[in-house]
């Protein structure tokens, strides 16, 4: 069996009319996609070894990872997430400003039309801060020492939940 690399062809009968010449409303075409993930570093934190490690691990798990470099503002991150149409945003932060910056990324995402994109976070985040962040709308928090396999499993779970 030969398949296109990363390219599954939909057999959706409702959407197969090429060019939609009849003007029939096509609602809810289902399609398969390669997941896209934004790995971003908000605020004044230049330590990106962890973010790069995660980016490579997700690449090897078959995801397209957009990496934008260090010192990003919440607006930078939200606009990038929307333009890149990612399925999930991963924030990496070691500076301690997560309580301030994570909610601001969520708010900015909403403003840019990406309010439905789940946000997860990792880095140096003390256990006692986690409930607050989850309450604010962050999908998951990974603290130091988390196994990379567990990160990938959790991301996959969040990605499949949206469908």
């Amino acid at each position: 069996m030969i398949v296109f690399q990363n390219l599954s062809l939909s057999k959706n009968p409702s959407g197969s009319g090429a060019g939609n010449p009849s003007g029939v409303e096509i609602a809810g075409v289902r399609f398969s996609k390669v997941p896209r993930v934004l790995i971003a570093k908000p605020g004044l934190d230049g330590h990106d070894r962890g973010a790069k490690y995660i980016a490579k691990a997700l690449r090897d798990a078959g995801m397209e990872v957009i990496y934008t470099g260090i010192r990003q503002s919440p607006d930078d991150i939200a606009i990038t997430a929307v333009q890149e149409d990612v399925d999930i945003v991963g924030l990496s932060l070691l500076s301690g400003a997560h309580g301030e910056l994570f909610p601001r990324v969520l708010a900015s995402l909403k403003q840019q039309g990406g309010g439905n994109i789940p946000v997860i976070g990792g880095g140096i985040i003390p256990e006692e801060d986690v409930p607050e962040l989850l309450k604010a709308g962050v999908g998951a928090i990974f603290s130091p020492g988390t196994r990379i396999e567990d990160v990938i499993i959790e991301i996959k779970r969040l990605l499949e939940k949206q469908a």
Partner: protein
Amino acid sequence: MIIQRTVDVSQLTRQLTGEILVEGMSDAWRSRIRALSRAITFLENDPLLAMNVLANEHFAGQACHSRVIGLTGLPGAGKSSLTNLMVRAIRKSQKSVAVLAVDPSSPLSGGAVLGDRVRMQEHFRDPGVFIRSMGSRGALGGVARSTRGAIRLAGLLGFDYILVETVGIGQSESEIVELADTTVLVLMPNSGDEVQLMKAGVLQLADVYVVNKSDIANPARMMNELHENTAPSDISHWCPRVLATSATNEQGIEDLVQALEDHRIYETTHPKGHEVRRERATREILRALHNVIEPDFISAINTLKKKELEDVIEGKRPALSVAHELAKTFKRSH
């Protein structure tokens, strides 16, 4: 890894044209940008259904007037850095610009790290700039299969310029020439000796040659050799420009932008320019036809008997003869 998503194509196209807003959004332009990014995702993942968006009645007869600039060159030659500076120059003249940056997909996992944005951070919050990273997803021409469709959609939104940055290339990935109005090939002062430049391929096809990193080594020899090897024998043809830049020191960018403009004027006013466009359109149709028919070919290959495949594996029969046979049955059934 593959996940499932659902899209309402009709709603999406109306959001693209701005007829309706994306749910929960009040800013018309932001809403159209959101729709554009969603539509590109759809094209990337479902090339067969892409027609439903690309040739939708909402866009019927709508022409795109964007100027498409292709940037290609060796990995690490400075394509993204130059793209960043070109975006800056374009924005200075109040024109809008969309950047489509292609990076290679992993042949092992299908994943990718798309990192071209790192060099373009200064433009993220500029509403006149749209940046989209694309994985090449197994396509070997330097761009993704869906890059052409993405150009069309960005054109429908009215961007003045569309910059397409290819994956870092070797010598033969020349599909960008078919997509772009003007192709820029980025090289480095020490990219190779004259014999390298004499070789055929993408080195013959660019409209503008840029020797970047001219701050690191003297670009003069490289520029001379490029001149000698790319000057057309027929003087009515466009004579490719050869420029030196330094993205690090932000030098040579005005000359580059001027060269792009010169080429635009040549291409839109000179009769030879029209010829070039016609040839490009023909190639575009050919490639699109290939994409349309390829899935049928793949199903045909999947019907091959084990014996036929084994014969090819063992070298008893050339693949070409199997292909000929398949083509015969294919012609009969159509």
